[in-house]
């Protein structure tokens, strides 16, 4: 099933891990990489050396640098991922580490996120780009506050697939009863948060049960009626959210920059956030009501060539970085959003957004921030804080301020109008950053809520506009 350096160019799947401290997250990631044979022998030897120094005994295999032998030795698999001095010294994960491995089916980018509460912002970082989140729960502790927090973050960020790895199942003698109790709790929390029904897997990261193959030691999970699957095969089969969902969304292309090498060429460069694009399409330039026609779409040869197999070679697809040309002349620049005129973005100068507050100093009403949305950054004022999510009760309560790691709803007044979408409709054009205008630090992840649709202003045709 696995070829470590498989030479295929299958799809790219982004995965994030989350969990509480000491629930074995680094070990699970180490196990996944190790058992998927993504660890090369020099890395393995380095881990074996350090493991041995710390009391794990890799013995002769290390001296012989024998890969087969080494693989059989007890290793501190967390050493594979904890890359910083402080992490290795303290045995904790401080920041997100990105790992790469591939199977015959798929290439994986894995964001290994820290569990400690003070590093929740890094979990938000890793989760924001993930197609799936693997959330670890220690079977002996069950659902703890960090589990709720991480599940809330995954739900809020609208991660497509949530997988709960109930770890350390070896520590409870592979007990089905212990697993079912945790499973029931986690499903209840997920239901309350309104997150999609998670996959729940009993796992021993230490011994590799149900990580790459289904374990003999959990026959109750293995039984056909449970359709138990190990973690890796599940990850290989899940649809990647990017491709399947974004293609149904209307066209959104934020203009990054205008390429103008000479008088006769004006190209608008950007990455297609959603929808498809081809020459002849009519598009709207937002903010504003100008509609015009796409006269050329420049894609890279690689994109054109590889899209050929997908049956839509003529269309530029979501995720592609393109440069397009438009009929007519207008004042489109960085910050302009090119949209489908039949399904445009909503233009707002006051909006409601859910935020994950990531800064040490609390957010209070009246705060002046920068609001970065797509390729536009505008000044903004936080006019009110509506509520914050109480993670123990999972209900929203009124709040005066938001503290580090709080999730809440705020009202924002923008210095100029932005074309936005609801985050539940578009992860790209519904997302925003709140930035500190003085030191430039990122304060919050913002997920825009758009009120029920109102009457859109009539879009002008380009002919009318050109003559006006």
């Amino acid at each position, binding site marked *: 099933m696995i070829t470590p*350096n498989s*030479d295929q*160019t*299958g799809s*790219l799947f982004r995965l994030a891990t989350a969990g509480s401290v000491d629930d074995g997250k680094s070990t699970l990631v180490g196990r996944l990489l190790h058992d998927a044979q993504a660890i*090369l*022998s*020099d890395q393995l030897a*380095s881990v074996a050396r*350090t493991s041995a120094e710390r009391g794990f005994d890799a013995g002769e295999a290390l001296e012989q640098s024998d*890969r087969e032998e080494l693989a059989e030795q007890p290793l501190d698999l967390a050493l594979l*991922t904890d*890359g*910083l*001095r*402080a992490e*290795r010294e303290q045995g904790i994960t*401080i*920041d997100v*580490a*990105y*790992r*790469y491995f*591939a199977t015959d089916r*798929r290439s994986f*980018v894995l964001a290994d996120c820290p569990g400690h509460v003070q590093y929740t*912002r*890094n979990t*938000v*970082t890793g989760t*924001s*780009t993930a197609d799936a989140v693997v959330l670890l729960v220690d079977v002996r502790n069950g659902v703890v506050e960090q589990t709720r927090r991480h599940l809330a973050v995954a739900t809020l960020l609208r991660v497509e697939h949530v997988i709960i790895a109930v770890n350390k199942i070896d520590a409870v003698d592979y007990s089905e009863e212990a697993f079912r109790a945790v499973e029931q709790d986690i499903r209840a929390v997920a239901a309350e948060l309104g997150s999609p029904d998670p996959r729940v897997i009993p796992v021993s990261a230490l011994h590799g049960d149900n990580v790459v193959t289904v374990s003999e030691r959990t026959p109750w999970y293995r039984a056909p009626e449970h359709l138990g699957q190990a973690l890796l095969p599940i990850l290989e089969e899940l649809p990647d959210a990017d491709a399947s969902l974004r293609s149904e969304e209307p066209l959104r292309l934020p203009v*990054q920059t205008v*390429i103008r*090498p000479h008088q006769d*060429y004006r*190209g608008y460069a*950007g*990455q297609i956030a959603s929808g498809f694009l081809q020459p002849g399409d009519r598009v709207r330039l937002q903010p504003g009501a100008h509609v015009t026609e796409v006269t050329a779409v420049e894609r*890279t*040869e690689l*994109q054109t060539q*590889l899209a050929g197999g997908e049956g839509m070679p003529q269309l530029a697809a979501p*995720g*592609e*970085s393109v*440069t397009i040309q438009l009929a007519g002349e207008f004042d489109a620049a960085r910050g302009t959003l090119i949209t489908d005129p039949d399904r445009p973005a909503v233009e707002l100068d006051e909006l409601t957004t859910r935020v994950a507050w*990531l800064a040490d100093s609390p957010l209070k009403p009246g705060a002046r921030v920068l609001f*970065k*949305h*797509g*390729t536009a950054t505008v000044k903004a004022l936080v006019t009110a804080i509506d509520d914050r999510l109480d993670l123990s009760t999972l209900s929203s309560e009124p709040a005066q301020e938001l503290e580090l790691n709080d999730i809440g709803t705020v009202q924002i007044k923008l210095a100029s109008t932005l074309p936005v979408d609801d985050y539940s409709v578009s992860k*790209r054009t519904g*997302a*925003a*950053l709140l930035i500190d205008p003085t030191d*430039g*630090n*990122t304060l919050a*992840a913002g997920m825009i809520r758009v009120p029920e649709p109102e009457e859109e202003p009539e879009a002008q045709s380009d002919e009318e506009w050109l003559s006006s």
Partner: protein
Amino acid sequence: MSSLARLEAESIHIIREVVAEFDRPAMLFSGGKDSVVMLHLAAKAFRPGPVPFPVVHIDTGHNFEEVIDFRDRTVERLGLRLVVGSVQELIDSGELQERADGTRNPLQTVPLLNTIRENRFDAVFGGARRDEDRARAKERILSLRDEFGQWNPRSQRPELWNLYNGRHTPGQHVRAFPISNWTELDVWRYIAAEDIELPPLYYAHHRPVFRRDGMIRAVGPHSLPTEEETVETLQVRYRTVGDMSCTGAVLSEATTNELVLQEVAAATVTERGATRADDRLSEAAMEDRKKDGYF
């Protein structure tokens, strides 16, 4: 979309974001495969226009001749401005001291930071990949550096979705790593798919070498065998082409992109483990260098 097409699109997006948001970007270009791929992506990002920034090479003075020649030809072909920061000049002026082990890679930090300061660059693209090293696996795509060029891994900004925040205060600058998410194999797949030219060192050739510390070292003006070390001529190629004094070759018969790709796919040792002495200095060698301002 295939993984390679997605990686390409993501890298082009990052390069365009940085160029659009910064006043004085520059790109590190050593002639090594990662920086060659990065520059190739930059050329794509702005075509039919030119690459809109200069390239920077921090020259250790111990480079392979083939690489310097390739660097100069590439710069000329793309009509770029080349800025060179020289380790040798700083050693000659007494600002830097040669290390006892003769390795010059860690010495690149000072000329790099000098070059950034003198040219007032506010963003510097680097071709580092997260799969190369545990410390690199931790770095953001846009990495804020303080006025001393230092990386503080414990207080990195959150990096959310594809909204890259490059804001910085005067004196600070940003390192941008557009191919962070590529693996060595992705790089070679891309080189093969796009038929990208590399320095000839990357392909199997015959060369006089000697063995030291389990590595195959080229014989050259900055890399001389001791009396106990025997010189032999072997068919080798390089997986990385850094400083001659700390870069080793691997035995190889791969003379084309396709053959190299097959060889890399079957490799059981990482490129750095195989060929970079400087990373063997300690468990956290890369982290320590990066904290000092290395790329």
